[in-house]
């Protein structure tokens, strides 16, 4: 047993030991302080440019992993690959747009050239077809057939007229009818003609119809020739208009064969579809007098990504849905349906990060349907193939576009918590091959000058970024103390930069509200207290219940079989401790230990383990050569929820031995600690919160000067208690004891010596009283058996 000296209850940072850098706005380099193991892994992953050498960065949230990785990338200074990517129309297969890669800047040039070409074609093609040359050529072709047909029709018409038959032009074609004075004979007049005359007219009409049909058939053949000739004239006229512009572009982009091929396809398309550039005229079907514009979008260029000439891109996928990663194909409403084309292809984060780095939060990625599988496919193929969610889900899309894939050269950096990494490693066979390097960030850093000053610089950078007013050294020292408190270890500093930065922001607010121009330790202290107070409602309610006597906790006096244990719980990142009464009852029995928590299914596995260790220790220590003739029950009084952990094992043992020895337990002490089968005390978590929780109750009832807490000796170096507790300890009003063996805790709590087990039972010791009680139980049990035997003999029974 050892009463801990006040100076060991909290290791404060000496403000004078801190070095404040001149420039606190540098940003990146300070972020690389500490986390040497993770830094080495990151450096390795960034340095290997092979497939699969992507990086999984793991560690707790809020420690600045992303900032750390960005700083490491910036230090490497990788240059951009300098490629632009464009999509153009695929004239051979419109549903499969063509992807073309160009040097940085040439993508924009090509897009502008295409726009300029289109504007030129809108002028040059109509101009060519407006020319007299074209008109004369068309007229020559048309008139040759028209004249031939006119002559033939005129001959037929004149011959028919000689027979009293007229050739009538109808909207659809031609017909013959008997005529009189140039007018078609009415049916009534025709019927009045003699049958012979009627028959003659019919026969004549039949003969002329045959001639007419022959002329029209010839005419159709001529028209087919005419169409072929017209097609040739149109191609020549179009070529005359477009060749100069397209040839110029082919020369301009001659270093890109894909662009030249695309321009040739444009040329061929124009020869066939020149009419798209001609104004609409004289269409009876047109509803609007001004007509509608033809869609000439197939000649445009979709500039998907533009590369910079500088550093490789570092892209963060904040919302990593499947389309946000791989890009998407948009749709537009058209004639009541939906349609799409290559111009509606939109880039994803993989496109933007191509040639550089893509940073993704693993949790967000896995929350998005199909996104993880799509990312894996892209990395495995080393290509970006746009997929839609509908396709991934197996649904049909009404208008489907399958753009050509784009080669992918990207280093993906996934950020996640450790369980995500271990889950993927275990359950996803692709994961290990795709993410060959893991950077595991530490929760805490050594508390030495190097890391303390590194953390100070990070905090100052954050303060600068948040435009906080200056933090003096006392404030920074107090923040470092808080970092140690967060680490639950006086020798370590928590790497949870985000939490510390939030405290700094709140301290800044406190300082400004008080009219201070510099933030000091007092402002930080107030900020920390305010943060705890905001989430302390349930803790205060619990304390109130204890003080009102609703929750039964004694802080003075002595009771048999009743110990103040300590529990801790977390609320919004803040830990709160409070005492919890543990009681034990014992009776003659066969060695059964009833853990009421477990029996009621409110005890966790670790707690059960502690109970079994306790039982084992008890039997080995006090009943090594005989059966344990006792049954015992242990319980956390007034607990209505799950209990887990083994930090109450010492308290439970002390309650049990108090019951067996009938020695009362000091209620002005609380105890926490686990133990092994040899009775050695083992460290527990939350020592600071537990001590403060009991201190708060004692203080509110009035400190007696004897109160205190017993903790494992191995927890001493974790202590970062509040100034209030440390001051009370220094004033002798409150005491913190460290123990290495359960006997030390027993002697403190039961206020009696344990006694040496090797010398056998010693009167007046705890061990002696326990041995005596066990012997009594044994004797009782033996007496009971003898009486039973006597009864059987009396009844004639035999063993």
């Amino acid at each position, binding site marked *: 047993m050892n009463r801990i000296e006040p100076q060991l209850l909290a290791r404060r940072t000496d403000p004078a030991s801190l070095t404040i850098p001149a420039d606190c706005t540098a940003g990146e380099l300070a972020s690389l302080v500490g986390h040497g193991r993770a830094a080495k892994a990151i450096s390795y992953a960034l340095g290997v440019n092979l497939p699969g050498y992507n990086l999984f960065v793991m560690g707790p949230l809020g420690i600045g992993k992303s900032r750390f990785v960005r700083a490491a990338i910036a230090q490497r200074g990788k240059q951009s690959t300098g490629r632009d990517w464009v999509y153009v129309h695929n004239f051979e297969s419109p549903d499969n747009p063509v992807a073309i890669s160009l040097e940085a800047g040439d993508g924009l040039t090509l897009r502008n050239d295409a726009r300029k070409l289109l504007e030129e074609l809108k002028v040059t093609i109509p101009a060519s077809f407006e020319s*007299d040359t074209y008109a*004369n050529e068309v007229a020559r072709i048309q008139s040759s057939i*028209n004249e031939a047909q006119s002559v033939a029709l005129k001959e037929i018409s004149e011959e028919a007229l000689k027979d009293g038959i007229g050739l009538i032009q109808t909207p659809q*074609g031609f017909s013959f009818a008997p005529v009189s004075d140039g007018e*078609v004979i*009415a049916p009534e007049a025709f019927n009045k003609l003699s049958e012979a005359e009627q028959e003659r007219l019919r026969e004549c009409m039949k003969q002329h119809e045959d001639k007419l*049909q022959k002329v029209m058939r010839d005419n159709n053949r001529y028209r087919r020739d005419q169409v072929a000739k017209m097609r040739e004239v149109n191609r020549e006229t179009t070529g005359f208009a477009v060749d100069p512009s397209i040839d110029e572009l082919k020369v301009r982009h001659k270093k890109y064969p894909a662009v030249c091929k695309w321009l040739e396809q444009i040329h061929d398309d124009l020869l066939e579809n020149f009419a798209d550039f001609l104004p609409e005229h*004289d*269409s009876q079907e047109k509803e609007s007098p001004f007509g509608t514009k033809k869609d000439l979008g197939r000649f445009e260029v979709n500039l998907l990504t533009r590369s910079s000439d500088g550093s490789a891109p570092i892209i963060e996928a904040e919302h990593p849905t499947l389309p946000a990663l791989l890009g998407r194909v948009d749709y537009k409403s058209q004639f009541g349906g939906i349609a799409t084309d290559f111009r509606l292809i939109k880039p994803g984060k993989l496109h933007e990060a191509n040639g550089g780095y893509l940073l993704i939060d693993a949790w967000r990625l896995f929350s998005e349907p199909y996104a993880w599988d799509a990312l894996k496919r892209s990395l495995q193929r080393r290509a970006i193939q746009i997929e839609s969610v509908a396709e991934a889900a197996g649904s049909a899309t009404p208008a489907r576009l399958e753009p050509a894939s784009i080669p992918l050269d990207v280093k993906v950096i996934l950020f996640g918590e450790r369980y995500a990494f271990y889950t993927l490693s275990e359950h996803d066979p692709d994961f290990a091959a795709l993410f060959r390097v893991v950077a595991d960030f530490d929760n805490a850093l050594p508390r030495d000058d190097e890391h303390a000053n590194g953390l100070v610089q990070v905090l100052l950078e954050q303060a600068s970024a948040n435009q906080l007013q200056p933090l003096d050294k006392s404030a920074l020292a107090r923040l470092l103390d808080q970092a140690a408190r967060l680490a639950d270890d006086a020798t370590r500093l928590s790497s949870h930069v985000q939490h510390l930065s939030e405290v700094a922001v709140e301290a800044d607010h406190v300082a400004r509200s008080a009219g201070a121009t510099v933030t000091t330790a007092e402002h930080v202290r107030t900020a920390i207290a305010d943060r705890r107070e905001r989430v302390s409602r349930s803790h205060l309610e619990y304390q109130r219940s204890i003080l009102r006597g609703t929750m039964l906790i004694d802080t003075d006096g002595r009771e048999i079989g009743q110990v103040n244990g300590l529990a801790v719980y977390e609320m919004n990142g803040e830990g709160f401790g409070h005492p919890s009464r543990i009681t034990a009852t014992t009776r003659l029995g066969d060695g059964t230990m009833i853990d009421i928590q477990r029996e009621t299914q409110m005890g966790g596995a670790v707690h059960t383990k502690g109970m079994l260790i306790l039982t084992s220790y008890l039997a080995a220590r006090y009943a090594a050569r005989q059966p344990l003739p006792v049954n015992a029950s242990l319980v956390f009084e007034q607990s209505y929820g799950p209990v887990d952990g083994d930090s109450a094992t010492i308290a439970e043992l002390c309650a049990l031995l108090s019951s067996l020895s009938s020695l009362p337990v000091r209620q002005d002490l609380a105890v926490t600690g686990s133990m092994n089968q040899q009775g050695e005390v083992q460290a527990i978590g939350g020592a600071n919160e537990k001590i403060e929780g009991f201190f708060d109750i004692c203080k509110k009832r009035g400190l007696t000067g004897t109160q205190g807490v017993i903790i494992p000796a191995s927890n001493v170096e974790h202590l970062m208690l509040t100034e209030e507790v440390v001051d009370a300890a220094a004033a002798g009003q409150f005491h913190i004891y460290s123990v290495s063996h359960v006997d030390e805790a027993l002697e403190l709590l039961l206020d009696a010596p344990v006694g040496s087990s090797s010398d056998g039972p010693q009167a007046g010791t705890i061990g002696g009283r326990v041995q005596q009680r066990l012997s009594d139980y044994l004797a009782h049990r033996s007496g009971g058996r003898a009486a039973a035997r006597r009864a059987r003999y009396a009844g004639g029974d035999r063993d």
Partner: protein
Amino acid sequence: MTDKLTPSLTVLLDPSLGHRAPLEAAALLARNLGLRMTVVVLENPDFNALARLPFSRELRISSSAWSAIEVDLVVSSFTAQLRRTERLLRDIANSLDVPWEIKQVRSRYQAAAERFWSDRAVLVLDRPPQVPVNQKRRYRQVLVVFDGNEAVLRAGLVLAQGIGLMMTILVVADNVASFGERRDQARTILESPVFTPAVQASPIPRAAHLPVQWRWQALNDDPAQSGQAIVSRLAHETRASQSLIVLPKLSQHCPVPKALASLNSATIVLVPMPG
């Protein structure tokens, strides 16, 4: 300037043709002259008589096959064509703010042309070609026969500038001296503003205010032969392209309606003499 010479402008349409180009040209002219536009859609009586004959059938150009002619089909075809034309006319006339009316008349084209020949309306003849062609109607030039009638030249100029066409002026003259005089007269007319302020401000649907080009063409001024000579000349000029022909109506130099029937692929605008 507005020459309000005549009370109206009449357009004779054969319903089997596409009408946008002639209706737009006629509306442009009516707008500039401040005239009401009357469109007469002709219903050829021969079609009705033909359809009612028991043995009637037609050889369709599209298929080169014979098909029966149904009376009901002919009637509904006339109705549909009238409605389509009316819808088109409404759009065009409303866009130029021209008052308009449309009516259907059962008459052969030649008879209708002769019937409307003698009144003082500007007459637009859009007759069908002898052989139906599946081709978009698009004018390539304006041909004006100028025999000293200023209104004819102004009408030609309105059409050429309003639509954006080259204008060819055929000057009727029987000797070099009279040719020179009329050419100078034409030049004077062409230098004066042609569009009224209202037309300048209105949304004309085609390229507007393009510079006009013209060619000079001397024609014999012999009244006895002039009409036929003009038709021959016009037939030659319109061989290469569809044309808008502007002629002086009721002039000794104007061909008779029957002679104009030989001018295929042309819309003929007949502008009466002032007074």
